[in-house]
């Protein structure tokens, strides 16, 4: 296992173009051991292309990717020995059972026993003995999660991992990711389920039209995000104009005694100004990552 904080994934200008428009362009990022990194973007933004390029299933047009310090193309086999991967649409043909898939992967990986796979199957209530073709998407996904994690990898690459899972299993998955992080595993998770990303990720990269437009700590992203504040004042008229003059304040509106405003950045100047007035009530709405994400998309668009 790589030392906590050591670089596990490093990309430099990673580019994969299928034609002039589609693919990924100039993706530069670093993911560390013991970190859960969320890769966010809508469908078609380039998340899966990035993952497939990291795993050498697609060959980059330009740039480079290093995983555990190894070249993602030249040392692909050695890298994959230390990686667990859940593809975006897990499948293995309709006839194979989950157990057959896990047993084959165990042989290919040189893993002796299936003890951990059995434990994971129990935990996710996965049926390993039915053909995959007879399983629902969610139940197939559980088998996929087992194949990605049963060998205790140093890096987990998960493409839309909770797709099709019921809420209970989504919780179980988030617990599993936390346990993997505690173990020192780096987790690279692509998702557009922003709630789960907010709960489990340390940092996120936001991808739009194949370009990585931001990498932020989730906490920083949320703290810097615009908050909606509603204040009930004894005399709101005079204050509204003063609030609108403050840096970072926008969308000030007055309805009766209530003043609503949006604050980007620090809230201290707003609180200082409010302190000199008679405040009857105050309510601040912390934005969800979803709102932050949408804001990013609108601003960058």
């Amino acid at each position: 296992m790589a030392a906590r904080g050591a670089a596990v994934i490093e990309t430099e200008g990673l580019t994969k173009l299928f034609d002039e428009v589609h693919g990924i362009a100039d993706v530069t990022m670093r993911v560390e051991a013991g970190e859960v990194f969320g890769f966010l973007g809508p469908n078609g933004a380039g998340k899966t292309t990035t993952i497939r390029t990291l795993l050498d299933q697609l060959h980059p047009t330009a740039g480079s990717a290093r995983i555990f310090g190894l070249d993602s193309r030249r040392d692909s086999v050695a890298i994959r020995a230390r990686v667990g991967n859940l593809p975006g649409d897990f499948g293995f043909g309709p006839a194979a059972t989950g157990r057959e898939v896990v047993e084959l992967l165990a042989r290919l990986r040189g893993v002796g026993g299936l003890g951990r796979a059995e434990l994971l199957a129990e935990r996710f209530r996965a049926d390993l003995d039915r053909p995959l073709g007879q399983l629902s998407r969610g139940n197939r996904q559980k088998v996929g999660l087992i194949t990605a994690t049963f060998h205790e990898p140093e890096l987990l690459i998960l493409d839309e991992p909770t797709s099709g899972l019921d809420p209970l299993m989504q919780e179980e998955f988030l617990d599993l990711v936390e346990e993997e992080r505690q173990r020192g595993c780096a987790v690279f998770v692509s998702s557009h389920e922003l709630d789960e990303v907010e709960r489990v990720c340390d940092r996120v990269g936001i991808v739009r039209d194949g370009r990585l437009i931001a990498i932020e700590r989730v906490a920083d992203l949320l703290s810097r995000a615009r908050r909606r504040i509603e204040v009930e004042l004894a005399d709101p008229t005079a204050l509204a104009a003063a609030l609108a003059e403050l840096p970072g304040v926008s969308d000030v509106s007055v309805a009766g005694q209530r003043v609503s405003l949006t604050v980007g950045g620090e809230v201290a100047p707003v609180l200082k100004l409010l302190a000199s007035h008679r405040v009857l009530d105050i309510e601040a709405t912390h934005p969800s990552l979803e709102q932050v994400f949408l804001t990013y998309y609108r601003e960058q668009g």
Partner: protein
Amino acid sequence: MKRSQIAALAVAHLSDRRRSVLAWGLPLGLMSAFIVAIFPSVQGPIEKAVNDYPEGLKEAFGIGRLTDVEQYLNAEMLSLIVPLALGYLAVRAIASGLSGAAESGRLDVLLSAPVSRRALVAAGFLATAVELAAVLLLTLALTALGSVLAGAGLAISPALAGFANVWPLALVFAGLGVVVCGFSLRTTVVTGATAGVLVSMYVVDLIGRLDSGLSEVRYLSVFRYYGNAIEDGIEPLAFCGVVLFAVALTALGAWLFERRDISA
């Protein structure tokens, strides 16, 4: 490439295609058994009819004398149906392991493990070789059974040579399928293109045999080296040469496959 990985992948591939051995071996075997079983009752009229065939036609389809059941089996099964069927089966088998696997998502899962693409190709080729041998053995076994039941007197050793001689020929089309997979991972493209080459090679060889002035074109076809093993025995040089050609095509295909993106 780790041998244990290739073995594990080949076994998984064979397990996935276990039904195909029966699906192809049973009809071919039953048809072949029927052919040998009816020989005693049709021998006289057939000999007379064949004597009236044009010489070129007899040469084109490898019909010499039809005085024994082995020659009849060769003319009815081994000169056309079995080689074309096995060639097509080889294409289907290799496509299922590569392009079919890409389309079903199996390739993504396998390539998540520390497996080289060369190992995947080698395993697919190995499994296809075993599958072809199994189908040929089943066909031979049913043919022999038909002969015993009908008292046709089929000699096993020449029949074995005749069926075994199909194996390297079919392998060539497995190798060719790998080459096509190096350019496309769409199963319809792989099977369509390779089956097209299979039929084209057969036709080219036929034209070369029918027209002595065009006999040189037969060198463009692997059927040129197929011969008539049930009558003349296996020609070791041709047998090994065709196997080596199939392996070389597979190696070329593996090289191309390593350099392409995995996406159907």
